[in-house]
């Protein structure tokens, strides 16, 4: 058993601890913040502790090491359900959660995007709502999060140097007249900072950063929290149920420990940060006589409004070599299309961000299921290929949702999550437009061939326990505190009222910082 790094451990019967479920971007940050305030926290993480030295520079092997591979099912008309029926999402099951895998793009949600319902109107088939929060309220926390994560082009931190893939994007973007193209805002050290070294441009950001240049709760927040003596990390501890008392307050969680034994940890309060599929699944699986539709679900919104961003990729082949894999995976961004401009035929906006895949993943994701001469020719062009990912706002829909699949059980005999999604017409219009713009960028840079690549299994999973001003419209308030149960919190991307066009993690961390202040305040007042 490796040294987990705990300075202190807590007993299962200690009813004064705060339990945080999940150690990723949301849970890891919240737990560390609480610990720094002197609040005792037990972090229960389903995945193993993998150290930086164990990361593998090998796409498939790393996927096996870090990804969430417990069974899930899918339904709906989205292409992922056809191509990857048991892999709706590409996220992690490991200490640090998906912050181990992420690329590091860290963008603030734009002011108008917090008011999606007001700005976009009442789109048929969409369940739009304004956030119970404004950008102005969040800005001080965004500033703290950017400092903590070392986001480039904030706090006087230099941008990362551009790699080959970025050079191609920049050439095309400037020819088209785009003005907002740079190496972006990345939570990757461009110079040594905060005890972590600078990026060495390995190109394995999706496989874990062995240099620790990229921010991840695995080697930032969690050890910092442990160092306070107020945070105990328990890896390989998968929570299967949250319990409550007669009054309806949560009192304990049941989890399977590393040996598979069922344990009960008492709790003063519980924060759920299992990412937007597992979080609603856990609330639904915790249904009781008192809460027959699942915990915190009087609104009926738990699991609904599942969002995954409107995504797609464009890859383009050039006469000369590109070697997109040399350097950071997400090396540059074009933000001109992120504005609100319905004249393009859709509401919401999108960013174009470079992406690179190694040869193995390029083969798997270029056109899942494809074979034959055309596919082989695309593979032949690998070294001459540049790539970008389109990430835009998708519409929340009540019918896009996480439900329990009672016919399929996991290793603990618990119903797995089914992920249902149908693209909204707005999503389809945006994706088509994004494809066209992405291809235009590469043609302007001299591409001889472009490829439109469908969405990968979802990396951004959002909205399934959304925050709302009114209890009837959502699951939690602007602090992630559930409307129904005051000592139960949602602490991950499930809280998002709408998806916005930006990569979500900076906002997840920002909300966790704000939530930590709120929880400490509530505890001080004796409210929880």
């Amino acid at each position, binding site marked *: 058993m490796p040294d987990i790094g705990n300075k202190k451990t807590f007993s299962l019967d200690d009813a004064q601890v705060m339990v945080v479920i999940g150690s990723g971007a949301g849970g890891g940050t919240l737990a560390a913040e609480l610990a720094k305030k002197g609040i005792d926290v037990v972090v229960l993480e389903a995945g193993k502790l993998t150290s930086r030295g164990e990361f593998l520079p*090998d796409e*498939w092997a790393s996927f096996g090491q870090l990804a969430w591979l417990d069974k899930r099912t899918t339904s709906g008309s989205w292409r992922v359900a056809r*191509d990857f029926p048991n892999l709706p999402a590409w996220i992690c099951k490991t200490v640090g959660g998906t912050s181990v895998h992420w690329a590091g793009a860290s963008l603030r949600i734009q002011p108008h995007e917090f008011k999606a319902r007001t700005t976009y109107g009442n789109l048929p088939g969409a369940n739009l709502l304004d956030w119970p929060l404004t950008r102005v309220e969040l800005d001080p926390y965004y500033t703290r999060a950017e400092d903590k994560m070392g986001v480039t082009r904030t706090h006087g931190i230099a941008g990362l*140097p551009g790699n080959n893939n970025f050079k191609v994007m920049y050439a095309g973007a400037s020819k088209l007249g785009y003005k907002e193209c740079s190496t972006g805002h990345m939570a990757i050290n461009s110079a040594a900072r905060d005890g972590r070294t*600078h990026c060495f441009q390995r190109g394995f950001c999706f496989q874990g950063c062995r240099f620790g240049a990229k921010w991840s709760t695995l080697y930032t927040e969690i050890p910092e929290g442990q160092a306070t003596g107020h945070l105990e990390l328990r890896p390989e501890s998968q929570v299967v149920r949250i319990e409550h008392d007669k009054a309806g307050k949560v009192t304990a969680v049941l989890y399977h420990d590393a040996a598979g034994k069922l344990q009960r940890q008492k709790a003063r309060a519980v924060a759920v940060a299992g990412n937007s599929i597992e979080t609603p699944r856990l609330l639904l699986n915790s249904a009781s006589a008192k809460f027959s539709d699942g915990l915190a679900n009087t609104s009926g919104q738990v699991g609904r409004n599942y969002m995954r961003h409107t995504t797609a990729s464009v890859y383009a082949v050039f006469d000369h070599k590109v070697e997109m894999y040399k350097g950071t995976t997400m090396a*540059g961004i074009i933000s001109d299309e992120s504005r609100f401009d319905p004249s393009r035929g859709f509401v919401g906006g999108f960013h174009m961000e470079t992406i690179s895949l190694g*040869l193995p993943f390029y083969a798997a994701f270029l056109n899942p299921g494809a074979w034959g001469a055309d596919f082989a020719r695309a593979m032949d062009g690998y*070294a001459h290929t540049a790539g970008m990912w389109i990430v835009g706002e998708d519409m929340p829909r009540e019918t896009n949702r996480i439900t329990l699949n009672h016919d399929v059980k996991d290793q603990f005999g618990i119903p797995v999550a089914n992920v249902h999604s149908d693209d909204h017409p707005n999503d389809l219009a945006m994706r088509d437009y994004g494809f066209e713009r992405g291809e235009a960028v590469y043609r302007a840079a001299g591409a001889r061939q472009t490829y439109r690549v469908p969405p990968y299994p979802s990396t951004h999973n959002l909205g399934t326990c959304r925050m709302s001003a009114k209890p009837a419209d959502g699951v939690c308030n602007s602090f992630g505190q559930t409307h129904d149960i005051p000592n139960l919190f949602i602490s991950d991307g499930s809280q998002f009222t709408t998806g916005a066009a930006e990569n979500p993690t900076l906002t997840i961390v920002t909300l966790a910082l704000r939530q930590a202040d709120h929880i400490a305040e509530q505890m001080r007042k004796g409210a929880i």
Partner: protein
Amino acid sequence: MESPVVSDRDPAGTEAPVASGAPIAPTRRGLLHATGLLTGTLALSSALAALAPSRSWALEMKGLSSHQGAVLLAFTRHLYPHPHLEDAVYALVVKELDSKASADAATKTTLAHGVAQLDAIGSGDWLKRAKPLQEVDVVSLQGTPFFTLVRSTAVVALYNNDMAFAHFGYGGKKGNDGYLYKGFNDLKWLPNPPAAASGPIPKA
């Protein structure tokens, strides 16, 4: 670990992919236990020669016969036709199919039936059939469990090994220490973006 199989159409996550590198050199002991053997020689000009211990290679199979292996190799060449890619790389797909067949009887049967079906179409030996006709046969088998198994194995195994990385031009684990001081931003056919859009190279 339970196999994270994601689809019958796509293998993302099926089993651990084949080991990188050239198929194993034959040993006397191995040969005694193998049921089948595939052999070949790397082209003199092959860039892959540097990666292999010798120019001749051999793949010993535990679950498949030599003929089955050869048919599967030819079938895979039609699925993912790269005229200049050595048989030694396609043999890694056969290697993976062989290990799946030795681990699972149903897989072995699927492969045996598929090869038998091809041989029947080819009047006893599909390998003797004209290439354009083989092509037609491959298309006609699309959607069968045999086709799906071979394709989904091939799309992983063919492109996930050091020889394929060398052939297609991917750095693979060579990038583990980072490109920052070796080959970073070495694209010369486009101008450098302005400094404001990029950032400084950290000092070594």
